[in-house]
């Protein structure tokens, strides 16, 4: 059985001999070598620069109220949706990895994309080539716009969601793509960063559309959203929409004890989303902390496998490594091996 079939088995709810791996990385050869899944980043190229330069609706020196009043979303020269799809797709070539790997086509969701449209320029210049979102910071200006001028926020959200939907549809048309993933952060570890009203009327409405676009073409759907989805019944609502959720990042987990508590919370979450595939189990925080040993990583994986089981589970890192870090570093590689050894031993 190749990697693609193994992952499909998990999505179909069958018990695999071992859970598949996803070690997501900016280095695609490393991702291929270490895991069963490849993630294609289908982010709109022109909009990627907002992270490094600030978005077209950055409020600059204006206070939130003046900015909300003056904001005119038609001032931006919106591209044709076809043009966006074409520009995005022509930069993607994952065929060489697609032969035996499960391929996920990732679009950036409208909530994050709206925040990036409103994001101020960074206070420092990044080194060339680094535009990783964790190095950028938005000020939740879109979330506050939604409170102050909901009609403008909704117009922006709907406009951007339209593009994302077209991209998701185009991704679902690609033969070698197995799943569509929408990356769209909704929460912090404390709970939702957006109002319940926004989540119910805008977020969930559009995410249903994205998931349907995948489903209509026989592809799986997957959501990547940070934070504590256990607050406010979010996980049940999202599990109703998506086939898979990633990374179930409910709490900070920089130590072994935190990580073990986190595993217990994942096991609890399983009862709330019985049919959903969980992509989780490998906290990126500690893959690169020297103080946490490979044996301790094994303990985390062991707890997940013994308490949760292998069904509907993809053992996945919670996030890509931080900029400048790689799984090929000696310490991280030892931990990757430890994860794999634990899975092998668990299966025996």
């Amino acid at each position, binding site marked *: 059985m190749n990697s693609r079939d193994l992952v499909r088995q998990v999505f179909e709810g069958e018990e695999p001999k071992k859970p598949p791996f996803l070690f997501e990385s900016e280095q695609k050869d490393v991702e291929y070598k270490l895991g069963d899944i490849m993630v294609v980043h289908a982010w709109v190229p022109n909009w990627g620069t907002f992270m490094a330069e600030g978005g077209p609706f950055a409020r600059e020196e204006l206070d*939130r109220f003046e900015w909300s009043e003056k904001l005119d979303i038609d001032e931006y020269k919106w591209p044709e949706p076809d043009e966006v799809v074409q520009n995005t797709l022509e930069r993607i070539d994952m065929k060489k990895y697609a032969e035996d790997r499960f391929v996920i086509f990732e679009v950036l969701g409208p909530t994050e994309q709206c925040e990036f449209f409103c994001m101020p320029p960074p206070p420092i210049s990044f080194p060339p080539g680094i535009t990783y979102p964790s190095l950028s910071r938005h000020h939740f200006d879109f979330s506050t716009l939604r*409170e*102050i001028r909901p009609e403008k926020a909704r117009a922006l959200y709907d406009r951007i969601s339209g593009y994302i939907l077209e991209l998701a549809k185009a991704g679902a048309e690609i033969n070698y793509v197995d799943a569509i993933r929408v990356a769209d952060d909704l929460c*912090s570890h*404390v*709970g939702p960063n957006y*109002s319940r009203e926004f989540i119910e009327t805008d977020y969930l409405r559009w995410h249903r559309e994205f998931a349907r676009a995948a489903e209509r073409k026989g592809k799986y759907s997957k959501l990547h959203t940070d934070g504590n989805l256990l607050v406010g019944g979010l996980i049940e609502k999202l599990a109703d929409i998506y086939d898979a959720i990633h990374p179930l990042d409910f709490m*900070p987990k920089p130590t072994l004890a*935190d990580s073990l508590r986190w595993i217990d919370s994942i096991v609890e979450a399983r009862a709330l989303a019985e049919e959903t595939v969980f992509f989780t189990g490998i906290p990126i925080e500690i893959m690169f902390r020297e103080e946490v040993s490979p044996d301790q990583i094994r303990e985390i994986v062991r707890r997940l496998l013994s308490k949760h089981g292998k069904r509907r589970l993809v053992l996945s890192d919670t996030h890509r490594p*931080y900029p400048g870090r790689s799984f090929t570093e000696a310490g991280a590689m030892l931990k990757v091996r430890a994860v794999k050894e634990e899975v092998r031993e668990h299966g025996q």
Partner: protein
Amino acid sequence: MGNKASADIGEKLEELDLRGLKAAIKEKLATGVPPDDIKKSLSKKMAEIGKKYVDGEIYLPRALIASEIFEEVLEEFDLPEGGLGKVAIGVVGPQIHEVGKNMVAAWLRSAGFEVLDLGILVPPERFIEVVREGKADILAMSARLSPAIYAMSWVLRGLEKEGLRKNVKVIIGGTAVSKEIAKEMGADSYASDFMKAVDECRKLIGKEGG
């Protein structure tokens, strides 16, 4: 200040009505209401807003806007600060995520702490410097990404090395850290949100329950 006047100011803050709030404060000051009373009304409402956030009655954007309005009027009308103790707060190391830090700073000010905001991208040495200069009873370090754990530990080791550790309490927060790691690195406290940060800072200076 009478109840009605106090309620007026509180309502404007809760409604996120910046212009209305400024007008109300201006009017109260013109009629001789002491700035301290205005600050108290604002602080009371900030505590209520914070509680609503923690209880899930309101969400981050409203709390965030309220904190910025509070900070703006505090500065514009030069309302009194302090009384409880001095907190130096900053985002440690090469990190630029500041929303959480700003909200903690606003709620600490509303609770009566004098806050020295060191900003973002704060070199670890700067935290030690403010303790050396006697500018802080509490150091509050925030981090979103886990590499900052090393910078936080560096600050704690530096304070020990210079014999300054006994002069200051250290609290950490942000998405990269936990209670467990606070203990591991030798910090005095940890807070998972801005309301807990206020409670923990009160405990650190022995004035809990305020």
